[in-house]
């Protein structure tokens, strides 16, 4: 749906995508936030929503044309269902997927990115906007999912971050060990650098659990800020324990940390959880 950010009102633009398998059965859907509204396509001048989600545990990616003026209903311009790695794969890991974010290439208006998780690992995919064809796909063997991104304005470089569930023990990362990771990539899929940010859980018998949920790029100072959900004792000051605090880490464009700030409830042992792409 479309919201006026000043007032929160949605006077138009509420669209429902639904596929009925039978008159009474609907599939199971999953959404992670992959949505972008291009109000003027560079080629046709039309308005398109780009979105991706799961339907019955398969990734669906859709370009939906929204008529600029009333009288015609929205129309699916193209849609693709991603290849499903099925039971012939050795492990359930390869069937896990999370279509997380969609963003545009500022240098080449013909392309967009879909980031998240595919085939069990963090993924970045670059697609042609006109026909949805895949240009390239980067699979991160040392990342479980790419949760957030930050585009450098008018440049080919962008940043992504997420985490690596090192043991692949479960789809739910509530108790498993995971380390946060940040990378810089360009629009040809070249990995410029990859950095792991992780520390030790203050409770030595508990798993280390550090994850990255947000990125923001400051083009005026050429600095990157990462938002982390951490248990790393090296970054926390007060009442350390087996619970999550929030950390902001300021870095240069090569991923070298400049300073960090931790947000916690001080002596109160409460977890602070973060949503995806939260900065």
């Amino acid at each position, binding site marked *: 749906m*479309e919201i*006026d950010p000043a007032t929160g009102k949605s006077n138009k*633009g509420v669209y429902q995508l639904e596929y009925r398998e039978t008159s009474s059965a609907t599939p199971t859907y999953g959404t992670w936030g992959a949505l*972008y*509204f291009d109000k003027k396509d560079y080629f046709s001048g039309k308005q398109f929503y780009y*979105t991706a989600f799961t339907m019955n545990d398969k990734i669906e990616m859709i370009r939906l044309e929204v008529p600029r003026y009333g009288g015609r209903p929205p129309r699916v311009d193209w849609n693709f269902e991603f290849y499903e790695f099925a039971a012939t794969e050795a492990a359930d890991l390869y069937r896990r997927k999370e279509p997380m974010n969609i963003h545009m290439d500022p240098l080449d208006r013909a392309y967009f990115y879909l980031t998240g998780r595919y085939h069990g690992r963090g993924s970045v995919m670059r697609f042609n906007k006109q026909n949805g064809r895949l240009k390239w796909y980067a699979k991160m063997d040392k990342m479980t999912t790419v949760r957030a991104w930050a585009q450098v304005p008018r440049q080919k470089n962008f940043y992504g971050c997420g985490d690596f569930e090192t043991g692949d023990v479960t789809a739910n990362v509530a108790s498993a060990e995971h380390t946060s990771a940040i990378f810089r990539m360009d629009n040809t899929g070249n990995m410029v650098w990859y950095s792991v940010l992780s520390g030790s859980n203050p409770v030595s018998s508990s798993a280390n659990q550090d994850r990255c949920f947000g990125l923001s790029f400051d083009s005026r100072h050429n600095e990157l800020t990462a938002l982390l959900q951490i248990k790393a004792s090296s970054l926390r000051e007060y009442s350390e324990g087996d619970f999550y605090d929030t950390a902001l880490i300021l870095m240069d464009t090569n991923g070298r940390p400049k300073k960090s700030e931790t947000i916690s409830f001080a002596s109160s042992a409460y977890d602070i959880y973060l949503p995806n792409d939260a900065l």
Partner: protein
Amino acid sequence: MIVGGNTTSSDFAPSTNSHGFLYALDLSGNFKWGHFFYNVSFAVTDISGCQMASDGQTLSVLGMG
């Protein structure tokens, strides 16, 4: 800043079943506006993401019915 998600709290929505919500704060943390999506007449149970549209004027929101 605009925050969206799911609440099952009857303190913020009419009942304890899932409701999607959105709220906005200014940079000083002052509350500007907030909405929940009533899960009967307007069935949005969760907000999973939002991003400004290409013109920077409106916010595109993805939710689950």
